[in-house]
């Protein structure tokens, strides 16, 4: 009996399985504290949909749900680093799986390239985590927050302009 659809290679199945498993694992790191049933259901369902369609905007939902749950609970211990790695890994796996249809074999050169990029993207994670743990926000001058806010707004505007459809 065939387990895979014709033309689908095992590496593609592994990538899509990661899309289902990694967001759930990021939520499971909270154990023994059990998240709300709605959150668990939402993450599992949206992660399953994402695994089915890696090139779909639904991928934002499981990542945002997990990040929101951790943000609401305000946990800033070592588990946050693990969650960050798992979410970034899920994003990289989805990106790698979204280069073509399910019958497109994973290019080893492309996989190596994205592995390196994934590691590079993880560099600011421990830096930010350490900054959050060590630095006291109350000591920062008020203009710093204004500057940070303005920078983010500027980045958002720039992003909106760049992603605007081109006029023909």
């Amino acid at each position, binding site marked *: 009996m065939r387990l895979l659809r014709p033309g689908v290679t095992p590496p593609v199945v592994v990538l899509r399985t990661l899309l289902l498993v990694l967001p759930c694992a990021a939520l499971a790191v909270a154990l023994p504290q059990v998240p709300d049933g709605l959150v668990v259901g939402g993450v599992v369902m949206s992660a399953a949909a994402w695994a089915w369609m890696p090139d779909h905007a639904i991928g934002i939902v499981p990542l945002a749900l997990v990040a929101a749950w951790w943000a609401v609970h305000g946990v800033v211990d070592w588990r946050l680093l693990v969650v960050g790695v798992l979410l970034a890994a899920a*994003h990289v796996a989805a990106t790698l799986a979204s280069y073509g*249809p399910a019958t497109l074999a994973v290019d080893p050169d492309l996989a190596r390239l994205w592995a390196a990029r994934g590691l590079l*993207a993880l560099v600011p994670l421990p830096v930010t985590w350490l900054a959050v743990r060590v630095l006291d926000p109350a000591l920062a001058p008020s203009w710093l*927050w204004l500057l940070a806010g303005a920078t983010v707004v500027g980045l958002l505007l720039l992003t909106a302009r760049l992603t605007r459809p081109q006029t023909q």
Partner: protein
Amino acid sequence: MTSWQPTPALVRACLLGIGGAGLAIAIGQEVLAVLSAPFVVLAGAGLAGRPRGRPQVTTRLDHRRLHEGQGTTSRLEVDDLAGVEHVTRVAARAAHVASQPTYGSVGSLVATGPPTIGLSPRRWGRRDVGAERVALTSPWAGWRWGPVHVPATSLLVLPRTAPYDGRAEVPQPDGLVGRHRSRRVGSGTEFEGIRHFATGDRLKRINWPVSLRTGELHVVTTRAEQDAGVWLVVDALRDIGVSGGIDGRPSTLDLTVRAAAALAEHHVRTGDRVGLVVVTANGTRVPLGSGPRHLQRLLGTLARTRTDARSTPPERLELGTESGSVVHVLSPMLSTPLVTATASLQRGGTSVVVVDTLGDALAVPDGAERLGLPALATRMQKVERDDRLRRLAALGAPVVPWRGPGTLDTVLQKLARRAQVPRVRA
């Protein structure tokens, strides 16, 4: 018109990275600041890699004319690859065309060269191949061009000609040049005998050993070399059975076309003049000719053969054959009018050989109900056909099932012997 569009991966990274960071600052959420940090990098790199070009995508086949079973490569040509990191091609499936990779999806980094798709037609005919969708992706998978649709191109697939190698000669060759032995003595190279010298004989024909031994001049006589006119009549009225391509079971039309191609190639290589008549709704006719260009014309005509439901069989086969021509009728012989037309041709004095191309198209499949309606109908059709073939053979037209190399050797040798027998005309 296509333009560079942000990928879902970039949108995701932007929302999680920049959106998350903004929210973290706005509401003072430390966790969001930490979790969004990797996505800020991914979003920034993706946004920065936006290409500015407007690439034009075309594909090119290495060959436009192939024999079935041969292969060619479809190559992608992109005029502007600036800012492009990855190319994905997804080829549409075409009937009777195998592709490499099997499911037609292929992608590679631009640095390692654009991906190619191997194509191998598995059945003769005109095949539309190369229809595909192409997507170009920028570095960090931020932007995508397409997928754009690339239309198919036509590929003419000639029938496989090998293997056929007959050693028998055409029964009554006629013409000026060729490789068949004539029944007449002439200036060829084929030894016929030794006789006394006569006035007019060329001196270089004198056989000196015999002349010295006998004391009288003797000359060597040879046979003239002549070519033959060969007509191939291809029955394209019906196609029975499902074609499995070159690797599977052939349909009757597959067998007919491949046999005709093999015979055409064999006779053209032997130096004979070969003509072709395709019996179909708008019957095609290629006059007698010889040489490699004529062979290509014959194969091209065979490759364009198509059955048509409107086809009606002819009552007579008007070939305009000269004496000495031989006619090969390639048919599964399921049409009574075609059998009648063949019989008329035979009665007219032409050497006719029927090449039976039914194969096992009427075989009852294993496990089929023996007394079921389809099995009974098939058996009745076979009985009627066998009766027609028996009557055709009684008229003197041999019927030979197509079996590849040497199929016609015995039959043509018998026909040649029969042609040498003196006839008494009323």
